[in-house]
């Protein structure tokens, strides 16, 4: 193993250890924060674009103004709204 390979191996190992510690200590926290943000965003889309799922709430004018910002998230939002859930989902 050359010096360069050794260094690269050690760097990789260090990164892995960092990742494992992050996974144990903070991954849940980061996920929870992302979940909270995602849930808020999805709620906002439901309020503004609810008519896409048959829930007309805002007048289409405002929906149309917001549409360009929402487009990238529509497919994941629809999937999340319509996905069947049960209690075991709450553990995720």
């Amino acid at each position, binding site marked *: 193993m050359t010096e360069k390979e050794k260094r690269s191996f050690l760097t990789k190992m260090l990164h892995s250890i960092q990742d494992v510690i992050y996974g144990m200590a903070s*991954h849940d926290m980061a996920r929870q924060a992302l979940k909270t943000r995602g849930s808020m965003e999805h709620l906002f889309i439901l309020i503004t674009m609810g008519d896409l799922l048959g829930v007309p709430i805002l007048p289409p004018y405002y929906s149309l103004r917001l549409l360009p910002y929402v487009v990238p998230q529509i497919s994941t939002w629809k999937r999340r709204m319509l996905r069947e859930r049960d209690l075991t989902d709450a553990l995720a």
Partner: protein
Amino acid sequence: MALVVLIVAIAIVVIGYKFYAAAIDRNIVQANPKKATPAVMYNDGVDFMPASGSVLFGYQFKSIAALGPIVGPIVAVQWGWLPAFLWLMLGVFFIGWVQDYAAAMMAMRNEGLTMGGLAYKFISPRARGILLTFLYFYLLLIMGAFGAVVAGLLANPVVPIGLLILTLAGVLAGQMTYRWKMDLVMTTIITVLIALVGIWLGTTGPAQNIVKAINGLAGTGDKHILYQTPYGPMTWPVFFWGIVALAFCYLGSVLAIWRFAQPVNYVSFWFVALGLIGSVLGVAIAAIFGTTDVAFHIPAFVTWNQPKLGWLWPMLFVTISCGAISGWHSLVSTAGTARQLEKETDALPVGAGAMFTEAILATLAVIFAATAIAKPDGSVIYDANNMYFLKVKAGAVWMYGMSRFLSWIPGISPAMGGAIGAIFLAVMALTVMQLVLRFMRVASAELVGDKIPAFKNPHVGTIVAILFTFLILWTAFWQRIWVLFGGANQLFAGLALLLITIWLANEGKKYAWAFWPAVFMYITTVAALLVVAWKSFQAMTKPDIGAAFAFGNAVAGLIGLFLAITAIVLAYDGLKSLSKARQKAAAQAGD
């Protein structure tokens, strides 16, 4: 002997992972790194999010390793350390990793469905209903079993002040991170240091005097007996600190998760990680340099029939659950990990790797227990004159072990080591209990919220769950509750293995490696639950038993019976589905 056992355990784990698990992953399940996983396909930044294998290994290990791998072996060495060690090794080698890994693969190849959805899809709608009800009782037993351990730990004067300061440090961590937007590294350093100083403060005389004063509030010293139970006296300190532990969980359940549960768990993590690394090194140093006595004082084999716990089969196999196999892991693998795996090939190091690592933690508990038969002051831990009956709470054994194996670190006195051990165990239990109570609240709102709207109120759901826990905690024998919890846990594992078998049969893959473990787990755990139910009903009918204990035994017996019946119904439905899947696979092969 301790070092030999540790080395043998590591060797078995490496062989199991490198050869058996890797071969199944490669040849039967055929994990494909190019196949899109649900985390990638359905990435919504909420439920489905890809993460690297190393991160998920840490996440999975933290989620599965709680009190189970520690308390189970400490109780089980009453049959001898060898049966406990053998079950840990054989269990993890042939069953444990199979469940954790294959549950993640099954969920991943079924669009990230959780256990409820998978039971609905592969068995029947009824199976999902039964599973969810079963789950509530399972969670209740976790609360009862863990709560009893925490109450016993907190009754020790060196523990409560340290735990209180650690909790406050956790709340501060939440405030610093989410409100003051401070750097996480700085937050970690400050709060972990506060927690460590707090633990040291807890061991000092004045702090202990405060706790002793509380412990003596009921009068006649700090061992005041409130009432006698058929299983020994209930002392005021254990009773009082049990209520404090439940209050702690109440806060974790009803407060915003960032405000209490999450940051307290975060600070606790560092503490648990440092304690664990310190004690593993401690065992190695003690064995090599002889700084601490590491000879096994409990015989390799004690008895086939432990008078208080029962026959080795089936009771040992439910007394040790986590470390060998645990149904809880299937919930984590499906609902948590499977929705975050970026590549199918990561399932092996994450699912199987974390399970094998947990077996090492459980082996450490066997070593702690087998080397501790009595304290230097002469107080007995395992009674050699009475079939090595465990005379103290399991937490005390771990505490004593940590006090001995952390003593190599300069500045850690035996009292400090013991306090670290107790807080280590208490935070591990409380971390899970908070999550479980939160989940029970959601479960009760879902299950009965439409019929009784009050259950939709988070406080009502939480209080009802706490009252049930309280009932279990104070009217039943905790070792019996531990076995009931283990039985429910193992049955859940049996169900997960049955689901995996049906999934494999549906896919036309070889399934014997999951089917036979499922059969073993089902038969063993149903037998164990029926034994516990029978013993509970027997105890209930004793003429001299008080009303509370008759009631407590009736509850324990009924839970055991209920779990056994639901398991049989689930097995019936499951085997019908398996038969259909086999016929379908045979027909496809014929085409």
